[in-house]
């Protein structure tokens, strides 16, 4: 019965395929089979899940779920959003805490700063110990010890799942380069260094593209040149001062000379208004007359 059902399914799918008549109108009906996909089987068996840690067992018992924490916290003192931990965290730099209160029942002679440091060291050491213990437990049970749980359980949040999906995509022989993407995943693969190192253009990349980019850069730089040519304005001012100085000298010599020079003046200042009307002209033909 199973064989009959399977054959029935196969034949119905065959009839669903696009078909055409081979060899003209009277020939037999031929179905166009889809492209063959080559599915390689796994080389090694899939890894078994690791045993849950002591905390995970406890959390499952109590029904505690992971609460999503915001990465930024409002720092009341600094009146801005600061990180929860790390560089410039909210609550100030713990290494520069200048006050450590003596708690109620403590020895007044005890060094509070030393106590805080010692307790931090103890906490870090205990965390490390527990981590190693969990790892040893997983190793003893003969299970794989992956960095993140690779099987979707109901207790993972979105970031974990995203990380797991990325690991799964990259775990192919060509390191995920030819994997089809999920519908809502980003199209561009993330950088291989995680955005850490600077990456430069290849040495012998597309030289024509490089040239066109440089020409475009030159064009952008050229278009931003200021329209007012300061030196030209300064030169015109200097010329006018020279003319006035010459005119004053002429006044001492003779009246006729002064009148002659005064008549020349409107022609000279006409150049200045001409320059204002056409501010684009930078290279002056007027330079020739400056001498």
């Amino acid at each position, binding site marked *: 019965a199973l064989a009959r059902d399977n054959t029935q399914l196969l034949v119905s799918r065959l009839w669903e395929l696009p078909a055409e008549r081979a060899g003209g109108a009277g020939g037999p009906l031929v179905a166009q089979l889809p492209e063959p996909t080559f599915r390689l089987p796994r080389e090694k068996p899939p890894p078994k899940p690791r045993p849950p840690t002591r905390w995970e067992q406890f959390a499952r018992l109590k029904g505690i779920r992971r609460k999503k924490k915001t990465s930024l916290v409002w720092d009341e003192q600094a009146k801005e959003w600061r990180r929860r931990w790390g560089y410039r965290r909210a609550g100030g730099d713990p290494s520069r805490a200048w006050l450590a209160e003596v708690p109620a029942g403590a020895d007044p002679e005890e060094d509070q700063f030393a106590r805080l440091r010692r307790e931090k060291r103890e906490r870090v050491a205990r965390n490390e110990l527990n981590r190693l213990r969990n790892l040893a437990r997983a190793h003893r049970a003969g299970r794989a010890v992956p960095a993140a749980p690779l099987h979707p359980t109901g207790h993972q949040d979105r970031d974990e799942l995203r990380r797991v999906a990325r690991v799964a995509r990259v775990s192919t022989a060509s390191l995920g380069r030819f994997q089809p993407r999920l519908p809502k995943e980003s199209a561009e693969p993330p950088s291989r260094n995680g955005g850490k190192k600077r990456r430069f253009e290849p040495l012998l990349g597309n030289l024509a593209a490089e*040239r066109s980019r440089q020409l475009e*850069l030159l064009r952008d730089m050229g278009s931003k040149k200021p329209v007012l*040519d300061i030196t*030209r304005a*300064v030169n015109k001012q200097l*010329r006018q001062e020279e003319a006035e100085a010459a005119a004053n000298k002429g006044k001492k010599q003779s009246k006729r000379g002064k009148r002659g020079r005064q008549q020349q003046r409107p022609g000279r200042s006409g150049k200045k208004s001409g320059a204002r009307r056409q501010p684009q002209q930078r290279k002056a033909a007027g330079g020739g007359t*400056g001498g």
Partner: protein
Amino acid sequence: MRPLTEAETRAVFEKLAKYIGENIQLLVDRPDGTYCFRLHRDRVYYLSEKLLKLAASVPRESLVAPGTCFGKFTKSQKFRLSITALDFLAPYAKYKVWVKPGSEQSFLYGNHVLKSGLGRITENTAQYQGVVVYSMADVPLGFGVAAKSTQECRKVDPLAIVVFHQADVGEYVRKEDTLT
């Protein structure tokens, strides 16, 4: 050796534009071949595509200089033009200064150009404009920065500096070890 980044290209072109203006595109886009800029150990080199392909096969520690060195980036990422770029800047220079034979020697020793040594200067040179310095026989001697505009040059006294020295061909002898 690597290509220049956007910011580095901009710095280099801005410096070159001070001396040759919009003629940079004649350096970038040449009819007789593809030439490009590459950075090797903080120095900017100008080389043809053919030379680039040859230089690419030389290991980085052994490579001394691919192409012509235009200048270098200082530790604070400022671009300094060097004398080895003169052969490429001189034909396209926009503002030129001719120096009298008497003070040619002084300029070649690294001194500034005084008004008394000034032969000719292009019209419309702005103050602090990049200029290429020539001898009276039209031989390029180096480059500098105009200390005074052309108008001011006429009025100033003979011992005033008119061109600040930036680089001269005498450096080929004086600074032999630092040039590439």
